[in-house]
C-alpha cells in the first residue's frame, strides 16, 4: 500500500504538471482539492482518466470522484479495492 501511495503522488505531480512539488511535499492526508493542493475541475477530470488508464477503473458516476479524490489515502484505498490492472 505504501508503494501505491508513493506511486500516486509521483503520477499526480507528473500528470497534473505540479512543477514545484516533490512526493515528499504531499502528505497522505493532505486535501487534494480546495485549500490543500488546490486542484481544480480539469484536474479532477484528469484523475478520472488516470484511474482508467493506469488502474483499469472506470468510475460509474464521475460525481463519485470527489469523495475518492479527497486525499492520496482515499485514492489509494479505492484503487486497492477496485483495480483491474
Amino acid at each position, binding site marked *: 500500500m505504501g508503494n501505491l501511495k508513493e506511486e500516486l503522488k509521483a503520477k499526480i505531480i507528473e500528470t497534473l504538471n505540479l512543477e514545484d512539488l516533490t512526493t515528499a511535499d504531499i502528505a497522505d492526508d493532505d486535501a487534494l482539492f480546495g485549500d490543500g493542493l488546490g486542484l*481544480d*475541475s480539469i484536474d479532477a477530470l484528469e484523475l*478520472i*482518466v488516470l484511474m482508467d488508464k493506469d488502474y483499469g477503473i472506470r468510475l460509474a458516476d464521475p460525481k463519485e470522484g470527489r469523495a475518492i479524490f479527497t486525499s492520496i489515502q482515499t485514492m489509494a484505498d479505492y484503487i486497492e479495492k477496485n483495480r483491474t490492472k
Partner: protein
Amino acid sequence: METKNGNMMNAVYISQINCITPLGFDVQTNIEAVLEGKSAIVKSDKYPLFPDVLLGEISDEEINIRFEKISTESNFSRLEKLMILALYPIIKDKNITEKTVLVLSTTKGNIKLLKHLESSVSEVNLGKLARKIARFFGFITEPIVVSNACVSGILAVSVAKRILQFSDNEQVFVVAGDEVSEFVISGFNSFQAMSDEVCRPYDKDRKGINLGEAVAAVCLSKEKKSGLVEVLGDASINDANHISGPSRTGEGLFISMQKAFGEAGILPSQLGFISAHGTATLYNDEMESIAFNRMNLSETPIFSLKANYGHTLGASGLLETVLSIEALHRSVVLPSLGFEESGVSKPIRVFTEPQTENIRYFLKTASGFGGCNTAVLFEKVE
C-alpha cells in the same frame, strides 16, 4: 449612431441569411422544423468507440447531391462544400469588389484531416480553408478568420459590423461552420460534458450537451433598404475566471450585455426575446440565468436551440442568429426544446410552444471555453 468620441458611425444591417443543418438546407425548412419542435439529435453509428453517442449530423449524400449542382470541382472537403453551399444563394448575384470582405468563423475547420497524421500542416490550416472558400467566389480581399471557441459564430457578426464601421468596405459576407468529428467527440467526452439523452437546456434534469454540425451565412452592409435587421450594439467580454468553467457571477456575459445595451441605446425591457446559448451543462445554464437576472432580463422570453441541433460550436452563434432573424420577421418567439422545469437558481422565462408576438428587438448571446462571451443586439428593419 454616434460613438463616445462623437464620431458618426454608419449603421450596419444584415440583409440576407441562410443556413444548412440536419433539419434542412435552407432557412424556411429549418424554422418550420424548430416551430414544430423537431430535433436533429439521434444515436450515431459512425464512431465505434462511442457507440451510443447522440449527434446532430448532416446527410453526406444530401451534401454531395446539392454540391454537384453548383460545381463539378472535386477537391473540396465536406466542410468546404457545406460552407460554399451556405454562401452560394446569398453571394451568387452579388458583385464582388475590392470592398467586399469574407469573414469565416470556425473552431476546428478541417480537423478531420489530422487523422491522416502524414498530412502536411497546411491541410488543416484555417487560413487555407478560408482562402479556398474566398477563391471559389472570386473574393479579391484577404479573408478574415475568427476562431474564438463557441462564440465565434456571433463574434464574426460583431467583427463584420466593426469592419463596416472602421473601413470603407461596402459588403461583408460571414460564413460559420463546424463538423462533428472524433477529435471533438473524444475531447468533450473526456470532459464528461455529454448527455446520454437529447439535451435539456435550463431544465432541472439537464445532464450536458449533445454535439451537432451546421453551417450558416449572412451578408452585412450599410444599406438599410435591403436590411432585415440592424446590428445595434455588440461586445465580447472575458470572464477572467477559469479556462473551462464560466464565471459564477456571469461577469463577462453581464458586462458584454451592459455594453451592448449602452451602445444600442435601448433598455432591457424593450427586448422581444433572447436567443441564448443554453448548452444544457450544469454550469453554463446557471451562469446565464445569473447574468440575465443581473440585467433585469428575467421576464424576457429566452430560448436555446441546442436541443434541436446540438451544440454546433463555431456555427452555433450564427445559426441561432439566422433563425432568430427569421423568427423576428414572423413575429414569433421560438420554443425552447428540451425544457420542462427550470433548474437554474434565478428566474427565467422559457416557452415550450411558439409565442406570437410583435417583436422589435432581440439579443443574441454566446459563451465559450477560455472565458469568452459575446452579446449582440438586433433591431428589426420593417
